[in-house]
C-alpha cells in the first residue's frame, strides 16, 4: 500500500515537473462539398435536408436550395480533434456518406481538410410501399349464409352416409 502511494506521488511529481498539460487542438479546416442534389434525376424540394455521415455518425447537415433551375447543396464537414477522446468529425481519407432526407445518396466523398469539392449527389427513387395502394372491395357472400349452407351440406352428407351404412349392414345380414 505504502509503495503504491510512493509510486503515485513520484508519477505526479514527474508529471508536474515536466509541465505536461492536456492541450486541446484547434479545429482543423473542414472538408467542403457542393453541387446539385437530385432524386431519380429530378430536383428535390427546396429545404430538403442533406447530411454528411462518417462511420455511421452524422457530422454535418444543410438544406437544399434552388439555383438556376437546379436543386443544390453546400456543406462543410468538420474535422476531428485528435487530442480529444470524442470524435468531432473526419480525418484524412475518411469516406463520407451523404444522405438526402433518409435516403443514402451516391457517390460518397472523401474527407480532406481545406478542400471544396464539386460533387453532384443522386438519391434513389422514393420506395413505394404497399400502404400506398388502396384495396378494392371484393363482393363475397355474407359469412352467416356461407356457414349455414356448409352446415346444412355437412348434415345432409352425414345422414346420407348413415343411411348407406345401414343399408349395407342389412344386406350383409
Amino acid at each position, binding site marked *: 500500500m505504502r509503495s503504491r502511494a510512493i509510486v503515485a506521488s513520484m508519477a505526479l511529481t514527474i508529471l508536474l515537473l515536466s509541465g505536461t*498539460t492536456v*492541450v486541446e487542438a484547434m*479545429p482543423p479546416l473542414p472538408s467542403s462539398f*457542393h453541387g446539385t442534389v437530385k432524386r431519380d434525376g429530378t430536383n428535390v424540394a427546396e429545404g430538403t435536408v442533406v447530411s454528411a455521415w462518417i462511420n455511421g455518425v452524422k457530422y454535418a447537415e444543410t438544406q437544399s436550395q434552388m439555383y438556376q433551375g437546379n436543386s443544390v447543396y*453546400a456543406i462543410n464537414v468538420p474535422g476531428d480533434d485528435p487530442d480529444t477522446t470524442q470524435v468531432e468529425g473526419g480525418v484524412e481519407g475518411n469516406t463520407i456518406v451523404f444522405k438526402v432526407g433518409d435516403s443514402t445518396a451516391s457517390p460518397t466523398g472523401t474527407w480532406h481538410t481545406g478542400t471544396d469539392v464539386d460533387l453532384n449527389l443522386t438519391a434513389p427513387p422514393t420506395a413505394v410501399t404497399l400502404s400506398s395502394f388502396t384495396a378494392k372491395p371484393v363482393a363475397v357472400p355474407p359469412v352467416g349464409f356461407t356457414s349455414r349452407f356448409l352446415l346444412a351440406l355437412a348434415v345432409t352428407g352425414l345422414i346420407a352416409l348413415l343411411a348407406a351404412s345401414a343399408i349395407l349392414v342389412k344386406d350383409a345380414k
Partner: protein
Amino acid sequence: MNNPQTINVTLLLPLQTGWNLISIPRDQADTAITTVLSSISGSYDLVYAYDASDPTNPWRKYNVNAPPYSNNLSQINETMGVWVHMTTEGTLTVAGSIPPTTSIQLYQGWNLVGYPGIQAKAISEALSSIADKYTLIYAYDASNPADPWKKYNVGAPAWANNLSEVRSRLGYWILATENCVLTINN
C-alpha cells in the same frame, strides 16, 4: 463597436503559397471579400472563416471558382481571423483606417479572431481584457513552413510555449473558457 480614426495606413502582407492565417487589421470602407482581397485576385482560390456564435455550423467559406450558392462567406473585417489559400505567392494590400478600439465577442470554446492592433504586444497585455478567460492561443505563421504553428498555453511553463506576442498580420485561435469580449486598443 469600432471608432475608426481618420489616419489611413496601408499595410502590405506577404502571403505564401498554401494556407495563410491572417487578419485584416484595418477598418475597411467596403468589407466585401472580393474587395478586401482584390490585391491578390487570381492568386488565391479558397478562404475560410470561423463563426463561433454558430456552433452547429461554424465554418464560413468562399471558393473563388464555386457557384455563388455554395459560398457563405461574403464579408471579412478586422475582427476576424481568415484562412486564405494562395495558389502562388502574393502580397495583400490592406488599406483603411486604424481602429482606435475594437471589441470582439468571444464564445466559450474556440474562436478565430483578427488582431487589429498597430504594434505587436505581449499576449498578457494584448489580451488583458479577457484575462483568466482563455487557456490557449494558436497562430499559424506561413512564412516559417518548417514550424508554422505557434502556441501559447496559459498553464504551461514558458519553455513549452513558442508564442509570446500578438501581431497585427496574423489571425489567432483563442480557446475561451466563457463568453467574453476581447477589447483591443491602439
